[in-house]
């Protein structure tokens, strides 16, 4: 399956989305990422029972924190798919990239560039 997805998406592999912490997502935004999203297994199929559900809750929390800070919460999202759904993975990458393009660049990265 030689699928294409946007080259701007950088993948960070974790054993389970339950490993993703609020601070990981916040740090990504702090360091200038325009957006971040977690791709977990389908709900109800987690090998660790509720790793992907915990991730979803953390993503929701981060969205609220970003709004408090003054950034768009929708820069962070959660997606679910099964490991056999390569085309869906590529489709989500495309969807997220287009969504972030609509929102524009992370204002923090612009300020960092201006300061440099």
């Amino acid at each position, binding site marked *: 399956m030689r699928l294409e997805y946007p080259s701007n998406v950088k993948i960070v592999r974790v054993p389970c989305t339950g490993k993703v*912490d*609020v*601070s990981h997502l*916040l*740090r990504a*935004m*702090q360091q200038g990422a325009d957006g971040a999203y977690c791709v977990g297994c389908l709900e109800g199929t987690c090998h660790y029972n509720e790793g992907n559900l915990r991730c979803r809750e953390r993503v929701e929390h981060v969205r609220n*924190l970003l709004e*408090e*800070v*003054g*950034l768009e919460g929708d820069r962070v999202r959660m997606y679910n798919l099964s490991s056999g759904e390569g085309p869906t993975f590529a489709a989500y990458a495309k969807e997220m990239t287009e969504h972030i393009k609509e929102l524009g660049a992370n*204002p*923090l990265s612009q*300020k960092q560039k201006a300061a440099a």
Partner: protein
Amino acid sequence: MIVAQRKPFEEIMNMLKGYKKVLNVGCGTCVAVCLAGGEKEVTVLNTELDMARKLKDNPIKIDGITIERQCDREYLAELDSKVDDYEAVVSMACGVGVQFLAERFPQIPVYPMVDTSGLAANQAVGWYEERCRSCNQCVLGMTGGICPVTMCAKGIYNGPCGGTNNGSCEIDTEQPCAWFMIYERLERQGRLDNILELHAPVEWLDQTPRTLVQPGYKKVDPEDLV
């Protein structure tokens, strides 16, 4: 354990608006367990503050350190060589920790980052329920292990009151009547006569800070403390 919740971000931003260099001190004991003020929460708050202040073009340098306990001199001593590098110190510990920190470093402003909620049990991760108001007059032995001060809306020692309503409290049908629960438990244990014993009300008046010295220990001269 002591439980707390983080203050609203807006309140925190307001408290720190005049500062450019701040040290955030976490506490690795109760507030870390209740997910309010441990190392992880220090990181999250510092990241948020850093982003928010950058967005307002008013950057802040905020460092974090989490010590084992803020209510213990032994651990606060770690901060002695650090705090003077900052304009202010913020604490994610409970009210005890914040005060103890402020007492040790009277030369520098100390701000609380959490609201201390009370003494609670851990029902599940992230879910805590109050069970004790530290009234200093424990009657749990007479009430079947159910605290009337905490669990009864009126905190009465001799209940139930006229507001008991088929097992619920008059303030809310979702709130169980503590004295109904006490009655049921004592009845099950065959010691319902306990409920007839009268107890003097808690002496909440004229409250001054309570000092506790355990048997075998004594107060020492403050000059001798580290």
